[in-house]
Structure formats: C-alpha cells, structure tokens
C-alpha cells in the first residue's frame, strides 16, 4: 500500500485553525482512525495549529504575511504530522497559562520534535490504526 498524504496551507490566523483541524479529521477517518486515537491526534494537531496561529505574527512588522502549513503522511502503518509556521517560537514561561498546548502534544504523540530555526516546526508521530491491539 502506498502513502496517503494531506497538505494544507492557510494564513496563520485563528479562523484558519478549525477548518484545517476538521480536514485532518476527515483524512484520518478515511484511513480508519476512530475513537480515542482519532480524537487524540486531532487534539494534538489542534494544539500545534493554535500555537502557530497565535504566535506566527509575533514578528509581524518584519514579515507581514505568514502561513501555517499542515502535512499529514500515512505510510507503512505510521502517521507523521508536521505543522509549521514562519513565526517565532515563544517559550512556555513567557506566556503564563498558555503552556498546556505542548504538554498535551507530548502526552499524546509517540514522538515529538520542535524546530525553531526558521519559524516553528512541530513534528509528531503516531501509530496507525492497523497497529493497535
């Protein structure tokens, strides 16, 4: 079986988050994800998207337009999710009360990496539905 891929790019705004999240959920349902796994992956993606939308404009004067991009790829029984933006990464301690997002992602994703060299890029890995017992 070949790879299945979903790639979406929208302006990094709060109103972009829900449509991308819903499109991902539809993509996951088509791959037979369901129940808690479906909810959890959507939740983790939603947190990363919200982070991107909230923070992508932190350097707005230098870069007046930014996008948030989601890439979901299902291959060889594993789902990889990558959410990136052109904003500057903001540490949890700098935003009191807004640090739950990364904690939630870490609790859900089997692997998670953050790159902050050029914008913020969050990569997550999840087992596919066929690997569940």
């Amino acid at each position, binding site marked *: 079986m070949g790879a299945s891929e979903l790639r979406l790019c929208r302006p990094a705004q709060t*109103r972009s*988050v829900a449509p991308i999240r819903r499109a991902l959920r539809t993509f996951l349902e088509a791959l037979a994800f369901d129940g808690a796994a479906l909810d959890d992956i959507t*939740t983790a993606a*939603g*947190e990363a998207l*919200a982070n991107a939308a*909230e923070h992508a404009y932190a350097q707005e004067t230098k870069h007046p337009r930014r996008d948030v991009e989601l890439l979901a790829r299902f291959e060889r029984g594993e789902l990889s999710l990558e959410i990136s933006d052109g904003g500057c990464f903001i540490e949890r301690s700098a935003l009191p*009360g807004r640090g*739950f997002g990364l*904690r939630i992602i870490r609790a859900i994703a089997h692997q998670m990496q953050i790159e902050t060299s050029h914008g913020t890029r969050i990569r997550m890995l999840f087992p596919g539905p066929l690997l569940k017992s």
Partner: protein
Amino acid sequence: MNEDAMIQTIRLAGELDLSRKREIRDAFAFSNGARAVLLDLSEVVYADSTALTELLRFCAMAQGANTPIAIVIAAPQFLRLVQYAGLATAFKVFPDRGEALQYLSECAGT
C-alpha cells in the same frame, strides 16, 4: 440563575478553541448573588488548551471568592484533554447536570 439555590448556570456549546477565546472569557463571569456556579459544557464537542486556560482562570477567581464551581463535561475528547494537561484534580468535573447540581447544593448548604 436558579433563584432557590442561587446557583448560576453558564452554558457553552460546540467547539471551544482559540477562535472563541474572547467569548469564553466573557461567558466565564460571576452573576451578583451567586453562591455557586454550574458550568454546563455538556454540549461542547471539542475543546483545546484555550478553554482549559480560561477554566483555570475562572476557577481561581471562584476559589478567591469562596464560590464552588461544578463543571459538566460529556465529550470524551474534552475529558482526556483535561487528563493530558495534568488538570484532573484541578476541577470538579461531573458527567451530568444532576450530579453537578447535587454537589453544588451540598456546598452551598441549600
């Protein structure tokens, strides 16, 4: 507001995410005379950390005012979100309105 028990009810439904941050914050406000607050989120189908942050803020205000709060959450996604955020013991969460009201009535001594 339930006039007999002086229990204020706040209801929100649908998806509680970043795009509704202002609406959530505005909704989480005390009415004059409330001795307890029921947050009826039973019709919320999705929540993110924005909702958790506003819940925490409101509960901290309530604690300062010595006003008990009960939260009704039905969606499994929302319940797990609370767990993943490490907030399972931070809120009084109930599966339905009846249990929440009973808890609040006991707290308020009505």
